[in-house]
């Protein structure tokens, strides 16, 4: 059940109405309803994987209780590692087994040894990377005595399976979400409206921008060997917008949906393409994952406390692991590595915390320096996305190598421009421009249209929302629907 599907448009109001009206605002009933709805939501993908989710939930719930009840540190450690090994084991089998086996066989073959290992033919359970990380953060926090084990199974199961975040995050923390699950929730009109507004903007990003860009990006990437440099640049730009609008659009829908149920999820994106350096980009892109790696990997490894070498090593580790988290392909590892290289100068010069504020805060336009910084950061990001999107490392290197092919060929630019405004005419370029301006104007808020039109009267605000809905309807009708990219992770 995709967020941008008709079935979700039916599912959400039903659950919403039942939640606020049929449960008598009884917290226990509300949580049970949300848990059942979440499992139903997950079963719509593939009911068989529901049992995996159940098992993972039971495992972490049980090991959490055992850790807390453990009489000594050794026993606590045993339960902790049991949970970590089984959780990562599932992830390893479903997501990485074939990659390791094939890479190992390739490695042996380079040494002249021909080996054939059996691979497994399984579909990756949707959301496994996300709910595994939910569970891991929970057991790690218990192990580190940061939180108490949750006694109420329904509350814990809801923490893991809450449907807005189940399949693609944000990756929540028990310290943030569990207290909200346990607290009486009441409906707040302004939060409800805010939730709907964020859902609307998420749908716009996904259906209008991401899915349209995907059409072009796919064509160019799938036939990159026969494209001019100008077209390849265009393809990389399309993918850059696609992945941002796809994932941040999903996150907006997730956050907005959760807000309708009185739950605030962690923010996942903060206008990353307006970053002035790579460190800032990573504080603004997939924030829940970056902070997860910071808290559960970077800091335990020593963080930045152990001198320059330790900082460099730990930075490379988290970027490589982050790349690998995205998928079992060398392209993701290369993407992680490239980002680690990008961020290295600021780590070495300790300038990685230079840009903690919002760019051009309180102003309409950035300074020339900020503009150049943003352009350079954005360009570096676009280059890195090529590795993320490519089918293989060979494909990525071929794509990057061909970027400068026909650099001074006017005809190639003309073709690329014609292509850009073909199909649906000027509509996409105009919408992209509108999108970027709206994002820029709203960059000081949680999401671009959070406070849009507050100073205008209702008819003006509604006219704006109606326009957005109509554009969404139109683009949804084009039948270009794509699955959310991050569902595969």
């Amino acid at each position: 059940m995709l967020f941008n599907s008709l079935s979700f448009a039916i599912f959400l109001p039903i659950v919403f109405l039942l939640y606020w009206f049929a449960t008598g605002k009884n917290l226990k009933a509300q949580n049970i309803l949300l848990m059942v709805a979440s499992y139903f939501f997950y079963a719509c993908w593939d009911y068989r994987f529901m049992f995996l989710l159940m098992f993972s939930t039971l495992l972490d719930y049980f090991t959490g209780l055992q850790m807390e009840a453990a009489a000594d540190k050794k026993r606590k450690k045993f339960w902790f590692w049991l949970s970590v090994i089984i959780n990562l084991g599932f992830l390893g089998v479903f997501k990485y087994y074939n990659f390791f086996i094939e890479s190992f066989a390739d490695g042996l073959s380079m040494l002249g040894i021909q080996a054939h290992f059996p691979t497994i033919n399984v579909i990756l359970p949707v959301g496994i990377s996300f709910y595994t990380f939910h569970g891991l953060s929970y057991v790690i926090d218990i192990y580190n005595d940061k939180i108490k084990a949750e006694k109420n199974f329904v509350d814990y199961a809801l923490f893991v399976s809450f449907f807005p975040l189940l399949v693609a995050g944000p990756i929540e923390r028990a310290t943030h979400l569990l207290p909200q699950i346990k607290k009486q929730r009441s409906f707040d009109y302004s939060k409800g409206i805010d939730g709907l507004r964020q859902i609307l903007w998420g749908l716009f990003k996904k259906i209008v921008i991401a899915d349209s860009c995907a059409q072009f990006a796919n064509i160019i990437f799938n036939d990159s060997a026969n494209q001019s440099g100008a077209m390849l640049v265009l393809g990389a730009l399309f993918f850059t917008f696609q992945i941002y609008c796809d994932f941040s659009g999903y996150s907006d829908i997730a956050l907005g949906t959760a807000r309708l149920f009185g739950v605030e999820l962690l923010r996942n994106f903060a206008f990353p393409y307006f970053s002035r350096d790579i460190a800032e980009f990573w504080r603004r892109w997939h924030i829940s994952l970056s902070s997860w790696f910071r808290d559960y990997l970077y800091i335990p490894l020593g963080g930045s406390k152990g001198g320059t070498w330790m900082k460099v090593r730990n930075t490379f580790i988290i970027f490589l692991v982050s790349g690998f988290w995205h998928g079992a392909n060398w392209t993701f590892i290369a993407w992680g590595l490239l980002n680690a290289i990008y961020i290295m100068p600021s780590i070495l010069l300790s300038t990685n915390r230079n840009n903690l504020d919002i760019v051009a805060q309180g102003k309409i336009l950035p300074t020339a320096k900020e503009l150049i910084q943003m352009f350079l950061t954005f360009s570096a990001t676009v280059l890195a996305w090529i590795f993320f999107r490519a089918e293989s490392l060979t494909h990525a290197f071929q794509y990057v190598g061909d970027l400068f092919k026909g650099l001074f060929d006017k005809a190639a630019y003309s073709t690329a421009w014609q292509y850009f405004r073909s199909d649906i005419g000027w509509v996409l370029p105009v919408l992209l421009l509108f999108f970027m301006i709206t994002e820029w104007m709203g960059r000081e808020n949680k999401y671009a249209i959070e406070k849009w039109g507050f100073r205008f009267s209702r008819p003006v605000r509604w006219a704006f929302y109606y326009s957005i809905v109509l554009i969404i309807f139109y683009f949804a009708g084009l039948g270009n629907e794509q699955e959310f990219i991050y569902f595969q992770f």
Partner: protein
Amino acid sequence: MKKFLKNFLIFCIPFALLLVALELYVLYYPSTFNKKAHYLHDNKENIELVVLGSSHNQNAINPQWIHLNTANLANASQDIQLDAALFFKYVPQLKKLKLVIFELDYFTLEEKNDTTNFRLPWYKRFFNIEPYPISILHRISLYSSQPSFFNKLLIDAVNPKKTKYQLNKFGFITNDFPGVMEDLKYDSTALAVTATERLNNKHIDTSVYNLNFNKTKLNAMLSYCVANNIKILILSSPMYSTYIKNEVKLKKEWNKIYIDSLIKANPAFNYYNYESDSRFTVRDFKNDDHLNSNGAKKYTLIIDSLVKTIVKN
């Protein structure tokens, strides 16, 4: 909460109205489906000839040029299962029916829709037949069956630069839309050079299951005709040479074996193969496997003279 729901519902009213308007448009705009259905329903007492088949017969046989009162029920992607559903729903009601034209082109016997064909709800809505299961949503809303198709239709309808479909009372499209033949200026060399890319994967699937399934359905229709003294005309429509060259030999052989055995067992069946008929030139085609309105007129007149002979006998 009440304020939230009230405002939300008020906000949704224009969209609800828009959806209703879209649904009404989809139901009542003059499409081939509703024109054909209306003609059939209004003339049940007088229909003498029924044409079944896919877009090949849909584009090739214009009832306007046939001397009998004809209902051309052929539609795009209409397989034998849909043919049979239409046949058994309507043929028993057509008291004056003298003849049924069946399409038996090279691909027909192995073609079978699945439930994703977006036109299936249209059959339910306009002909009240449901040989394939249709979702509840598509039963309620025809627009939902293919929003992109209807959006484009609506946008084209209000775009003065777009050529509009012109349908006659039989639901036959009488004006020509640019097709590959016109695009390539009827240049046979250009058409041949680009054929492989254009016809890649076109009608190449082979399936013994579909073959047997369709044979059973077709045999049932033929038997009904025989039992009810309704004449049968089986046709293979004209195709352009590029399409013929792209045909899969195995499929063609299976088709031939079936037709030969059918005719051998029933010498009274009238089978005519116009696939490679040299009377049809490149200028008679819209694309590789569909006649344009000129070709349709030429073909229909040939068929009409056949019909005259068959009906007289």
